[in-house]
C-alpha cells in the first residue's frame, strides 16, 4: 500500500462523491452513510456514465445515465445487470482522505 493524501472528508458531501484523476482514468471517491469511504472507477461498464454523479444509497450507487446499480464495496452490478467496475482502497484518517496509490505506481513501473 502507498497511501496518498487526496483531501479532507469535508470535500465530499455526505452521500456524495468526487472525482479523482489518475493515470488509470477517473476514479469516483464516495462518502457513504456513516462516513464510510469507497473508491471505484468512474466509468459505467454499460455506456460510460459517470458513476460519481449517481445517487448514493446504502453501499450502492445508481448510474445517472440508465440506472444500473453497483455495489461500492465489490464493484459488481446489482440485480439483472451484468458488469463490474474496478475498486480501489481508500480510507479516512484524522479527517483526511487517503487513497492507495500502489496500483498506479505499479502500472507506472511496468
Amino acid at each position, binding site marked *: 500500500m502507498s497511501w496518498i493524501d*487526496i483531501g479532507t472528508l469535508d470535500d465530499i*458531501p455526505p452521500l456524495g462523491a*468526487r472525482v*479523482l*484523476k489518475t493515470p488509470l482514468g477517473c476514479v469516483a471517491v464516495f462518502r457513504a452513510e456513516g462516513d464510510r469511504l469507497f473508491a471505484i472507477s468512474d466509468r459505467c461498464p454499460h455506456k460510460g456514465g459517470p458513476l460519481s454523479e449517481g*445517487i448514493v*444509497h446504502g453501499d450502492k450507487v445508481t448510474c445517472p445515465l440508465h*440506472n444500473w446499480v453497483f455495489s461500492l464495496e465489490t464493484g459488481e452490478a446489482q440485480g439483472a445487470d451484468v458488469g463490474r467496475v474496478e475498486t480501489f482502497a481508500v480510507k479516512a484518517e484524522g479527517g483526511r482522505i487517503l487513497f492507495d496509490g500502489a496500483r498506479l505506481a505499479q502500472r507506472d513501473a511496468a
Partner: protein
Amino acid sequence: MQKLVVIGAGMASGRLLEQLFAANPDAYDVTLFNAEPRGNYNRLMLSPVLSGEKSFAEIITHDEDWYAAHKVNCRFGEAIVKIDRDRKVVVGAKGEVPYDKLVIATGSAPFIIPVPGRDLPGVVTFRDLDDVEKMRGACGQGKSAVVIGGGLLGLEAAAGLRLQGMDVTVIHLAGHLMERQLDPAAGYLLGRAMEARGIRVHTQGSTKAILGHARCEAVLLADETTYPADLVVLAVGIRPEVRLANDCGLEVARGIVVDDAMHTSDPDVFALGECVEHRKTCYGLVAPLYDMAKVLAKTLLGEAGAYEGSEVSTKLKVTGVDLFSAGDFADKEGREDIVFRDPGRGVYKRLVLEGDRLIGAVLYGDTADGAWFFSLIKDATDVSEMRETLIFGPAYQGGAKADPMAAVAALPPEAEICGCNGVCKGRIVEAIEGGATTLDQVRAETKASSSCGTCTGLVEQVMALTLGDGFKMPTAQPMCKCTDLTHEDVRRLIKSQGLKSIPAVTQELAWKTPNGCHSCRPALNFYLLAEWPLDYRDDRQSRFVNERNHANIQKDGTYSVVPRMWGGVTTPAELRAIADAAEKYDVPMVKVTGGQRIDLLGVKKEDLPAMWADLNAAGLVSGHAYSKGLRTVKTCVGSQFCRFGTQDSTGLGIKLEQLLWGSWTPHKVKLGVSGCPRNCAEATCKDVGVICVDSGYQISVAGAAGMEVKETEALAAAPTEEEVLEITAAFVQLYRETAKYLDRPYKWVAKVGLDWVKAQVVDDLESRKALAARFEISQSVYRKDPWAEHAAADERPRWAPLADLTLEAAE
C-alpha cells in the same frame, strides 16, 4: 307513493337504503334525517381521518349525486326531537314530517363517565366527524392527550393522536387492554406494541377527575397519579341511542326491542343498527347491522325475511398492529386451549375448543388465518380430525405446503372474507368470474372490503387466485422496494407526523433500506420541500444528476446549458453574451430548442460555474431545462405586432414565467400563450395553455405532446391578466400538493378529475386564493437563480476534480 321517514343517516340506514332502492327504487318516497350536518359516511374510517392517513372526502359512502339520483329528501343537520305515533309524524327543528312507515336508526351515544370536569372544553368523545375535528384542532407538537378507555375505539384514537404528534396516555380500568376481546397474554403484547409506538398505557387506572380552569389541563386518577392533558378523549363505551323511542312509548330494554323482521312494538315503526336490541343482544360492530339492513329492506317491501343474530369478530385498525379475535374464550369447565407463541416474531395465537368445536380464537401478530378460524366457529365445524395441526391454520391441513397463498386457496367457498359485509369467498369468486377484474369492481359488486378495509389483502389474494396471471395488484402500489407504503400514504404521513427531513421519514416510517434508493429519494425530497417550504432544506444528494448540477447531463458526461429566455424573447446583448460564452468554453453545438430558447451543448462540468457567472453578468439566469419544475412559457407575438392578435400574449407569457420560475413540481410543467385561436404557440397541448380572445383569456390544462399527445381541457375563462396569473398559480400549487411524483399534470388530472380541480382553483374563490398564497410562500424561497448560487467563487472548487494524480504518478 308511501312515505318512509328514516331517523339517522349512519352505517345501518345507508345500507338499508341501498338494499331498498336496489330491490325497488319506486316503493317509497324517502325523507332522511340526520343530527350530524352531513350524510352517510364510513364511520369505521374516522380513525384514519384522525391520524391523517385518509381525508374525510375519501370516507363518504353516499354523496349528493347518490341522494339526488334516488330522490331522497335530505334533512341533514336536523335532529328529530319527537315521534308522535298517534298522528304518525316526526318533529324536527324545521317542523313536522308525516310518515307511513318510520325507521329509527339512531345508533349509539358515547358513554360519559360521571367525573368532575367532564364538561370542560377539551374533553371530547369519539363518535363522529365533529369529534375528530375537535381532536385535530387540539393537536400540536409537544401537546398531551389522555385517552380514557383502552378498548377498540380508545386505542384507535390514541394511535391517531400519536401520529398527529401528541404525547398520549391511555387510561384503562381493567388489568389489560381490550379485555372484552383479548385474553391477558394477547392484551400484554398489545400493550407493548402501543408502548413501542410511544403511547403510555396505564392499566388498572380509575379516573377520579378531569382538572382544569378554562379548559382541561390534567387527568387525576384514584391512585393520585396525574397526567397532563390538553385533550381528553372519553372512549369508555357506548349505549344505544333510545331516547326518542322511550319518549314515544315503544318497548325499550337496553336497546329498542325488535323482532326477527325488525319490527318494533309498533307495526309501522322499525329500527335497526346499534340502537336496537334483538334476542336480548345489542351490537357495537357493523357486520350485524348489515344483516339487519338486508332483512329490513325485505320487510319494508312486504317480503318475508328473518334476522337470526350474528356471530362477530373484531380486528383492530391500528397500522402495524395485527390483531383478530372472535367467539368466546373465557376460562370455563370443559374447555380446552391450544396456544402457540413465537416471541421472536411477536406472534401469539390461542384457540378455545369445547368438545369437538372451535368456539373462540385470538390471534396477535399474524392474523392471516382469522377468516378461516372464524368460519370454523360460525359453522360449528367438527375439528377433531385436524386438532393436532389446527393452530397452524388451513395451509397445514391435508398436507398442503405452507406458501402465502395456500391459506386463502384452502378456504372453502363459504368462508367469510369480509366480516363487515358478510361476504364469503364464493361470492367474490363469482363476481370475478362474472367479469369483475379490479378491486374497485369487486367492491362495487360484492361490497367486500368496502367498510373497514382490513380484508383488502385477502380479497386481493382471492382475486390473484381466481384470475391467475391476469391479475395485477391494483391500487396500493408501494412507493418502491424500500417501503410498503404508497406515495399517497407517505405524503399524508409526512404531513400528519410533521416529518421534516429524509432521515426522519426513513426512520419514522420504517424504511427497509438505510437511506432509500434512487427512486424514492428524489420523490421524498420533493414531497418534503412542497410540504415545508420554509423549514425544509433541499437535499442535493437526493436529486438526480441534472437537478443536482443544474444542467442536463449528456451521453458523454458533458452538460448542456440553457439560459432562460422569458416568453421566448431575447435581446442583442443576451445573444452576444451567449455567443461569447459558446466561444470561450469551446461549446461544440449551439442549438435552438423546441422550447423557444438556445441550448449550449457539450460543456465540461468544471466549466459550468464560470460559464454561469459570465451569463449572469449579462442578466441571463437558469432556464431549468433540467428540472421537475417550470420549464418554458412559449408565446407568440400577439397583439404587439400580429394583425390578428387580440391581447398581449408575449407580455402575459413573460409575466407567467416570472411568476412560476424556480418552482419545483411533481414533474415538469410547460405553458403556452397564444394571441388568438390560430394558436401559434401551441398552447393547447401544454400543461397549462392560454388562448387570448377579444373578451379575455381562455385557460385550459392537462395537455400533452410527448410520449402521449392530448389536447388540453377547458379550465376557466378569465377577463383579466391578474386572474389568469392567480388561477395558474392555484392550479400549479394544487398539482404540487396532491400529485404523485413523476405524474405530469395530464396524468394527475385524469386521476383526480377535472371537476375537482375546477372546484378548488376556479369556483371556490377562497380556496383559489389560499392555494395562490401558499404558492407564493414557497416561491419566496425558490424564486431565485441556482446558477448564481453555485457560480460564487467559494463554490467553484467543488465542481472540479478532488485531486489530480496523473502528474504525481508520472513523477
